[in-house]
């Protein structure tokens, strides 16, 4: 929750007849709605959707109490309502292909079928194939080949077919 942003936006529209404003900047999403001035007393409506604010969180952020579900401070999972996130089910090392030198399982823009292998996570010398949970187009890849991956880390974003 970035109060400064909300405040700036409220100030911005304070003297205007704007009735709806939506701003998206990276992970942070703020939506404000209000009735035209002079109409009835329906309130401006503010919605803040924040994923994880920053990669290296301030202590203040780190100190935020997570709720039992752990929803509060998810690891980097860029919000994009249209994409299905493929998250790592384990700790390990990310590999884009079956062996060094061979082509990547998938590239950005590829169409994948549900069940198709997207990548490999190596954990304790075991190669674990990570499969697509939905069919669609690979819209984003969040990690580099050979990168260490923690549990729950976002790997791909798939736009469902």
């Amino acid at each position, binding site marked *: 929750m970035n109060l400064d942003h909300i405040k700036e936006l409220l100030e911005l529209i304070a003297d205007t007849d704007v009735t709806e404003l939506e701003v998206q900047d990276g992970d942070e999403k703020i939506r404000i709605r209000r009735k035209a001035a002079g109409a009835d007393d329906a309130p401006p409506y503010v919605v803040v959707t924040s994923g994880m604010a920053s990669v290296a969180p301030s202590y203040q952020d780190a100190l935020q109490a*997570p709720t039992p579900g752990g929803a509060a401070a998810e690891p980097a999972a860029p919000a994009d309502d249209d994409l299905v996130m493929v998250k790592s089910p384990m700790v390990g090392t990310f590999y884009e292909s079956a062996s060094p030198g061979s082509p990547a399982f998938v590239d950005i823009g590829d169409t994948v079928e549900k069940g198709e292998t997207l990548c490999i996570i190596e954990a304790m010398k075991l190669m674990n194939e990570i499969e697509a949970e939905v069919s669609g187009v690979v819209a984003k890849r969040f990690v580099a080949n050979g990168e260490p991956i923690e549990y729950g880390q976002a790997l791909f974003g798939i736009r469902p077919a």
Partner: protein
Amino acid sequence: MFEKVLIANRGEIAVRVIAACKDLGIRTVAVYSEADRSALHVRHADEALCIGPAKAADSYLNVPSVISAAEITGADAIHPGYGFLAENAAFAEVCEVSGLAFIGPPSHAIRLMGDKARARRAMREAGVPILPGTEEALDSFDDARKASEDIGYPLIIKAAAGGGGRGMRVVRQSKDLESAYNQAQNEAAASFSCADVYIEKFIDRPRHIEFQVLGDNYGRVVSLGERECSVQRRHQKLLEEAPSSRVSAELRDRIGKTIEGALSAIGYSNAGTVEFLMDEQGELHFIELNARIQVEHPVTEMVTGVDLVKSQLLLAAGARIEDILPETIEIKGHAIECRINAENPDTFAPSAGLITKFVPPGGIGVRVDSAAYSDWFVPPYYDSLVAKLIVHGPNRTDSMARMRRALDVFVVEGIHTSIPLQQRILADEGFIGGDYDTHFIERLLSR
């Protein structure tokens, strides 16, 4: 020395191990579950990574995740803390084959000590006093009578397959032995489909006393004296102190020497705790050995001046006892630890939730080992220990005064804690007089 240690634990013990690593200039890797994202050990470590969901079985107890976390971060050793994987011999073995140093006893020692009957036998053979008993199931009442003559009264008949009090009979005189034997057998058969029973010496008012040891990789084991842990509820320790007012220097020395020899003989190394029951005559009887660092290790640290966790790291890295410990271990003053748990002090119901205010006590003689802070959410998934409040003073009276003072000013809001219960204990005449046993809390709560 290790360059980077992964701490396969959470809470205060993870913070404790990180502190020892920092003191030695070793880099640290914290692992955490999704429920522990804002935990203090995550903040204190040089690196941290999420290894699974809130459920411990899928995170802190997940061996592949932990090993994999060590591999991708380039850690060269793992400290298991207590609980979770600490006494898992298979985990220690996996570390060994993965080329990771396991900071604890060798896996064979963990395995031996995990098998209570084998452990008892090994310790008895090494000359450690064991609670007199038949150990094996009795074949007949005749055997029971013979055994009773060796063991003496009072004695207890226990179901071999049992637990929870069923199939148990305390016998105080020989004329009651036969009927008790038959009743126990019938109850055992009904409860466990196995009528086997065995006999053990019964202690009416046992005290729980344990000895801390450290051993190096070259066969040398040293005892660091005892802790008195009789203040417990349902086998959960609530308060520990060192030294025990019932252990004389002579007894400390004698038992210390005995266990040093015994553990050296079985090839034990690193930290360990040898647990005893003390009978009404002040005799100690071995129960089991805990092959790990324990929750209550700080009271020993306070009276000996030895940093046990740092010693674990040094010993695992190959240090010799003589290079890291003073020539003789002196017991200086008296220390008490109170476990501050997130639980209702009356009902003992766990009390997870947001700590809205956390103001730990400070000042002379006070040590706080904790992973809590204002605005921390105590997750409901793990044990309820929120802080260990430890005091040290020149003698038991001063140490109790300091503990009362520290409890008085310890503020934890938003959740229930065991602070009020600890205050009751510290105000109790029996406790103050040092006259208590493992039934102390039971009696205190029934008043």
